[in-house]
């Protein structure tokens, strides 16, 4: 089993996962709203959209996201990595507030608070959980017994 405590490097990878995804999505949405309405009768326009600057920039960011996301998934659970990804939205909202001086409504502050608390919840737990069936033989007895106790 991989180490349960994350190293600084692994935190950096998680940070990259969180930041690159919302920045990439923002680029994509900027690009897509600049194009007119696309119908399925002309699927070619959807492919051509890939080569417009905003969408191309968004794709480059999302490739960076994907590389760091894959790395994170190789040593952490999906249910650990995904809430971390959502934390990127908080960072972008805070950047918009303090760097671009955009106003943030009360509703958005509530959203920021909920995501932060949620991420705090998982971040306090282990990054990788033991698989109940296949891994239980490898574990020392006391831990297995303790976990069975928690399940009940």
């Amino acid at each position, binding site marked *: 089993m991989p180490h349960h405590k994350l190293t600084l490097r692994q935190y950096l990878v998680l940070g990259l996962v969180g930041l690159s995804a919302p920045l990439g999505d923002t680029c994509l949405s900027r690009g897509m709203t600049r194009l007119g309405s696309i119908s399925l009768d002309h699927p070619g326009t959807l492919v051509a959209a890939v080569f417009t600057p905003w969408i191309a920039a968004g794709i480059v960011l999302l490739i960076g996201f994907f590389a760091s996301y894959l790395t994170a998934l190789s040593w952490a*659970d*999906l249910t650990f990595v995904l*809430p971390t990804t*959502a934390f990127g*939205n908080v960072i972008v909202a805070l950047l918009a507030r303090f760097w671009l001086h955009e106003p943030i409504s009360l*509703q958005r502050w509530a959203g920021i608070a909920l995501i932060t608390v949620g991420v705090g919840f998982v971040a306090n737990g282990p990054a990788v959980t033991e698989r109940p069936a296949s891994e239980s033989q490898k574990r020392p007895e006391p831990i297995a017994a303790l976990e069975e106790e928690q399940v009940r």
Partner: protein
Amino acid sequence: MTLLFSAAAPGAWSAAGMIAAVVLTSTTGEVLTAAAMKSIGDLDEIRARSGMAGAIGAVVGCPLFFAGVSFLALAFFALLFALNHLDLSLVAPASASLTLVTNAVAAKLFLKENVDRRRWTAAALVCLGVYLLAH
């Protein structure tokens, strides 16, 4: 679903269909990708052992990874399509927050991840938070 309604202005059902398409394809893709990465093992260790090329080779040589990426690509185009017909303020929060919950369920069912109360709470909080933030 999406194909059927694309000609008309998006109503509630076609909007739901577009969002469901994004959520289903991305959940499938993410679970398959996560399963692939788990089967490969710690990428940092592989890279330390056999270099960047070795790490890329390990990922590219995994069939599950391609299945996952195919679904993620489908999800990407489903998202582009939905963004073109619906408002970002609807698509982004709805698909992002729903995906969090479907992923937690799928991770428990298919990846056998130990989704305990802590992680259910986190998924619910983040789901609600993403919705409030992006709406």
